[in-house]
């Protein structure tokens, strides 16, 4: 029982990290109708930026140092994402297919650059020692990294919810997701919201990249890490319903749980190495056949 509970918590933590990636993808699609294949690049850049800072902090710098590392990952992800929107996406506003193609191209370029600069070997983030330990709750032993993932997911979910509900930018984004043309016809410069949403998504992706490495990848960061995570984030967005933040949160947790639980019970015990990943794909097929619009079914195009 205690093992099962620990696995469930681990699954939810993974789901929280998937949500961090998927929330940005979902916001960008909801407002701009762009499937952003460069999101994995923002994630990897954030992780590398955090890694660079961590190397300069003794023992990872303790809790404050780790928060600083997360902040740098967020800022790096946001800066690159916002710059990509202004320099690459904005000139192609009227050409949706070209927008998708350029995000694919950007991802390839970023991966290539990281391979060229850092090589193909993964590099290790220096993390505070407490993050590698576990907290004992009764007979349960829960890795502190799981708590970090859960906390980040919860903070971003709550923060996004408050931001979308109570700020003018949030109002513009919600309205723009419903009818972008009419937002402009009210005299609002919607391109600012586009850049902001890209930046916001990039920040969440940067944090996700760093946390995934710390919690689920032995603190190792590699040039293709973003692309691996992006596949699951897209699955989360599709299962949750394109454009729905709440759907992405629910789907993130469901996907994380299915992946971790099936990997443990089907994979580890039977030796079927890809059991978790295949279970997620089966889940995707089931959801699409039963609810083609995803769990929230916010937007189908």
């Amino acid at each position, binding site marked *: 029982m205690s093992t099962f509970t620990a696995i469930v918590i681990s699954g939810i933590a993974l789901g929280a990290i998937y949500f961090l990636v998927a929330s940005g993808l979902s916001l960008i699609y909801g407002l701009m109708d762009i499937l952003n294949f460069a999101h994995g690049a923002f994630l990897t850049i954030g992780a590398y930026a955090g890694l660079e800072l961590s190397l300069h902090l003794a023992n990872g710098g303790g809790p404050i140092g780790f928060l600083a590392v997360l902040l740098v990952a967020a800022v790096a992800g946001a800066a690159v994402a916002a710059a990509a929107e202004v320099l690459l996406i904005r000139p192609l506003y009227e050409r949706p297919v070209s927008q998708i193609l350029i995000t694919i191209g950007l991802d390839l370029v970023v991966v290539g650059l990281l391979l060229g600069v850092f090589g193909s070997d993964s590099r290790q983030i220096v993390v505070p020692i407490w993050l590698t330990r576990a907290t004992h709750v009764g007979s349960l032993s829960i890795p502190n990294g799981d708590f970090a993932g859960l906390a980040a997911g919860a903070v971003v979910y709550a923060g996004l919810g408050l931001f979308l509900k109570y700020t003018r930018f949030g*109002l513009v984004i919600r309205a723009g997701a419903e009818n972008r043309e009419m937002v402009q*016809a009210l005299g609002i410069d919607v391109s600012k919201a586009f850049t902001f949403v890209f930046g916001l998504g990039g920040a969440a992706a940067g944090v996700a990249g760093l946390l995934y490495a710390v919690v689920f990848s032995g603190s190792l960061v590699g040039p293709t890490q973003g692309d691996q995570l992006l596949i699951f984030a897209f699955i989360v967005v599709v299962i949750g319903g394109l454009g729905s933040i709440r759907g992405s949160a629910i789907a993130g947790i469901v996907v994380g749980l299915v992946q971790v639980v099936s990997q443990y019970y089907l994979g580890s015990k039977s030796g079927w190495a890809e059991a978790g990943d295949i279970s997620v794909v089966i889940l995707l097929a089931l959801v699409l056949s039963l609810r083609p619009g995803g769990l929230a079914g916010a937007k189908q195009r």
Partner: protein
Amino acid sequence: MAGTSSNQAAEAGAVDALEALGVDGLSLSIAGSRILDGVSFTVPKGGVTALIGRNGAGKTTTLRSIIGLEHATGSIRITGVEVAGWPTYRRIRLGIGYVPEDRDVFGHLTVRENLQLAEVGPNPRYDQVYEIFPELAQRSLQLAGTLSGGQQQMLAIARVLLTERALLLIDEPSKGLSPRFVGELVEALEKVRGGATVILVEQNIHVVKRLAGQLVILDQGRVAHTGPVEDLDDPELVRRLLGVSTGS
């Protein structure tokens, strides 16, 4: 010569001062089909100009082109400022209020949020808007998507009244509304217009006769007739350009 130039400039300035909107040679093709074919007209400041014509004549496309939602070629002057090539939001900020054909309220936002979104200038006039449309005040926390068609139309009009606008573009406000509500709507439009210039696209000739002073009639993407609204008393003109038999 210099005197002549300055006279011409002064004359042009005087024309600009009287002109709320001028379009010249507005043309647009979509998928090989000519939707607008050199539409040209001017709208003087103040008063209501009705832009009418049969279905597919290009009325809605003309309004959408004026605010940049369609990328038509040609010249568009808003209060004397050439805006061709400007993005929509900049044209709107010159003082345009746009009420689209299908209302386009944000169904997932509340009535209040729909109005907040339209606050693009200082000192939004909520008191005035709620005085004209008290139902909106009562339903301020209701999702706009759950309003009736008439209430959505009120909201769409209220959005453009929240800030002072010099030019209102109103596209088929009576479309889909019951005759009883059309009467209320006309009264509301008369009340809210104030000093603004209005360009009204409308199929209902009775509404046009009641509200408008000037006519621009479009036919197959071209301006077929301009003149005072009294021209609608000519049954031959109405039959020929609007395809409507007045029976009088």
